């Protein structure tokens, strides 16, 4: 009984790590530009399919993964420069419509380039381990590790570095930030670069066991969105906690109730949070904390 519970928890945490990385990307963009990026999940699929293709073409695993992550980061920057930055009066609603367009465009490109079938990156090096009957797959360490290193790195970056503080300033006091010389253009580019980067990292670490599919980004992005809402769309920490909880709840629902209700659980949580507690898991909802 306990073994089963722990097994489900491991699956939930690794799945939740992927949601958390996507949520970090969504929040990074939202706090700086007030853009809800529907294409966040596509970043993950693009990186997964891209690296699967590069590795299949003969590139060493980590080189292929690195190239794919950097390329997707550039795609995110291009999206900011070519589309988001061109809009004079950007409301969250127009941002949804615009990024929806980008999402559809990216899906079409992936479908044309790599076909309709799911593809996976080879497993990253490592060995599966068995502790007290609970089996932990090596790739799950990579997924959780990616969250710790990349997600943790982004949080530290925002809190400790000058650039990170500048981004927070843009989020909290855009006008004042501009007056003291923080470039809103650079802040926006940086935010999209972060979104592309974390989305791509999530996509490549998940691809070996969950596979990548041209149309798979929508649902994945929505799960990240639910996690971001749990973070009130302002707090990385709350969103990461929320994402891990979401992953675990999904695993428990699938294991103990019915696997068909798995995706429904996420959206039920979304509705409940928006109705009952729109600030999500954020404890002090007064200040913007990123």
């Amino acid at each position, binding site marked *: 009984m306990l073994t089963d519970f722990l*097994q*489900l928890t491991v699956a939930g945490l690794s799945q939740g790590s992927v949601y958390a990385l996507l949520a970090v990307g969504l929040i990074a963009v*939202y706090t700086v530009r007030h853009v809800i990026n*529907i294409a966040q999940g596509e970043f993950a699929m693009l990186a997964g399919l891209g690296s699967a293709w590069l590795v299949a073409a003969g590139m060493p695993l980590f080189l292929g993964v690195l190239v794919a992550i950097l390329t997707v980061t550039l795609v995110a920057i291009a999206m900011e420069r070519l589309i988001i930055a061109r809009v004079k009066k950007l409301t969250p609603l127009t941002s*949804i419509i615009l990024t929806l367009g980008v999402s559809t465009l990216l899906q079409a490109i992936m479908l044309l380039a790599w076909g309709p079938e799911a593809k*996976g990156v080879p497993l990253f090096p490592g060995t599966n381990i068995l502790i007290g009957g609970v089996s932990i797959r090596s790739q799950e360490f990579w997924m959780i590790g990616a969250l710790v290193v990349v997600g943790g790195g982004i949080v530290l970056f925002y809190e400790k570095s000058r650039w990170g503080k500048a981004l927070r300033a843009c989020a909290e006091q855009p006008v004042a930030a501009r007056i003291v010389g923080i470039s809103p253009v650079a802040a926006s580019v940086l935010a999209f670069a972060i979104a592309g980067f974390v989305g791509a990292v999530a996509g490549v670490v998940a691809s070996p066991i*969950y596979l990548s599919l041209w149309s798979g980004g929508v649902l994945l992005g929505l799960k990240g969105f639910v996690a971001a809402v749990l973070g*009130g769309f302002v707090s990385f920490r709350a969103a990461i906690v929320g994402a891990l909880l979401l992953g675990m709840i999904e695993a428990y629902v699938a294991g103990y109730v019915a*696997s068909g209700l798995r995706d429904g659980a996420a959206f039920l949580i979304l509705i409940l949070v928006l109705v009952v507690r729109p600030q999500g898991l954020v404890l002090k909802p007064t200040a913007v904390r990123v």
Partner: protein
Amino acid sequence: MKKSRLRFIAPIAVVTALALAGCSTSNLGGTADADPAAEAGPIKIGAVLDVTGVGASLGVPEQNTLTMLAKQLNADGGIDGRDVELTIVDNQSTEDGAAKATSKLIESDKVDLIIGASRTGPSLAMRPIAEAAKVPMISVAANIAIVEGSQWVFKTAQNDVVVIERILDDAKAKGYTKLALVRDATGFGEGVADYITKLGAERGITLVMTEAFEPSATDFTPQMTNVRGSDADAVIIWGINPSAGLAQKAYVQLGVNKPVYHSHGISNQAFFDAAGDAANGVIAPMGRLLVADQLAADNPQSTVIDQFKADYSKAYSEQPSGFAGHAFDAWHIAVNAIDAVGTDPEALRTELETAKWTGISGVFKMTAKNHSGLDASALILAEAEDGRWNLLKD
């Protein structure tokens, strides 16, 4: 930021994204009377396939096969001098997409016959439309419900019931008495648990647990954790790829350590792509295509299988899958019938009911009662080893 704004925006974002995910709702509905077949001009064959979406690993090779065969046929002068016009519509692996595509093919394209769909769910959605419009339809999916009691609907994939019988016979021979089932939650997996219970009872085998998964699922830990905790002697995983392959991978990685059977839904390369080394040791009933090199020399299907493999790999630089075989058989059964009686719907339907065809998926003998035409002899048992299938029992 303002909380009230998020409250407003969030639902819009979700609804938009869900709409994007493909919840199209429009449906043409209604059925025109069948077009009186003009016995001149091109012969029109429509196909509704799961080219994108969860059924892509089935629909793509089927699309390839039909395109190749239509080209070959027209290059050889068509049927009785009439060209064959093939229209393939992608149903995006959805039921409503399949229904819409069927209505369109019947009403606007005025097709003489429809092939498809790739999976059971979409095929079941097409059945009433084809029946009402009195247009012959040949599905390439498995579940017997597609053709049971039908007038106008036929199918070429081996029935799920005979697949289950084949598995149960092997399980009985090996002394397994308790089975667990992990099945596809869509039409393909419907009724499987009931058949195992019913057919298992005759063999002293009980079904102790059933778990389900969506074909779009990527994580199978919950299902496999439950199976691991059960007292089953062996497990049947019933699905299509990539989900069935991913389920197999999770099964091995979570250390379930029980013998495992799969259905014929995995007879393609996508299974090995998704499952990797975890596929080793899997036993599955399937058609003879994937073990063609191991068949007895006098096997009646050898000639047609070898020819098809040569043609397909020449055209697409890859080996055909069992699903490509289902489409190949559907095409030839259709073309042979049209060649014999033309395109008058009633004559065509009657001709299909007596169709005989030695094909890829088996030796077909259609009758008025049996619109699937294959029995257990169409299946062999194969075991996976290092990315290929070894013939266990013919």
